[in-house]
């Protein structure tokens, strides 16, 4: 789809918004169920958290954060264009501004989660 249509930034922004949205929806389904288990079956919840704290779990945590951050920033961009239609003319610039904020927020967060990843490797091999 992404290769076929060559729709430019607007279509990429749409496709990323949809892909990140469906991914976050999947995690929300899992996350409400796992939090329910805190009360219903705390032992099961703790073993699931044990998986979240493994290297693949932390990689997924990092990807989830990226999906949420992209979806949040592009969602603001959509709201700006919906309620201030003249800004639609600058939809590309707004999308680039999204990526600037994405990197500015993403780099320090990635450093912290990178630390969690290193500790998870130490737990795994230590």
């Amino acid at each position, binding site marked *: 789809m992404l290769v076929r249509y060559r729709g430019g930034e607007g279509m990429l922004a749409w496709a990323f918004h949809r892909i990140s949205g469906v991914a*976050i929806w999947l995690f929300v389904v899992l996350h409400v169920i796992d939090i329910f288990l805190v009360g219903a079956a705390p032992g099961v919840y703790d073993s699931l958290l044990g998986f979240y704290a493994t290297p693949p779990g932390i990689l997924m945590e990092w990807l989830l954060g990226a999906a949420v951050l992209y979806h*949040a920033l592009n969602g603001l961009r959509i709201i700006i264009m919906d309620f201030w239609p003249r800004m639609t003319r600058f939809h590309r610039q707004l999308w680039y501004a999204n990526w600037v904020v994405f990197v500015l927020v993403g780099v320090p967060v990635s450093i912290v989660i990178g630390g969690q990843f290193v500790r998870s490797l130490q737990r795994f091999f230590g």
Partner: protein
Amino acid sequence: MSSVYSRSGRIKPQGSRSELAIWYLMRLSGLGLFVLVLSHYLILHVLYDPAEQDAQWIAQFRWSSTFWRAFDWLMLILVLFHAFMGMRVVIGDMTADRLRSLLLSGLYLLAGLLFVLGTFVVVTLPNVVPAG
């Protein structure tokens, strides 16, 4: 040449009052989630290491105040509305006829179930859980 006019979001629906209401609520819940979800992720995945959290930590510490229980319940309501109404648009775009109505029924059923499960735990979880 690319067009000047481009949309990432759904075009504002005309005609149906309920569709228009959903369109506005999608944007309103999105703004709420911008604050709630990003601060949730910042607190529980950046400021605190998830590896140091468990069921007891949530019961004794995270949910020890009504404020954070109310915060999480509001986030539950907004995220269920936003995520499930978003999936409704995805299903509407990708399917038709009987498959669409089947998937939509399942979608609304799942949303209702998650609302019950999430509300139940955030209201009833005691501040100390027995070791399990």
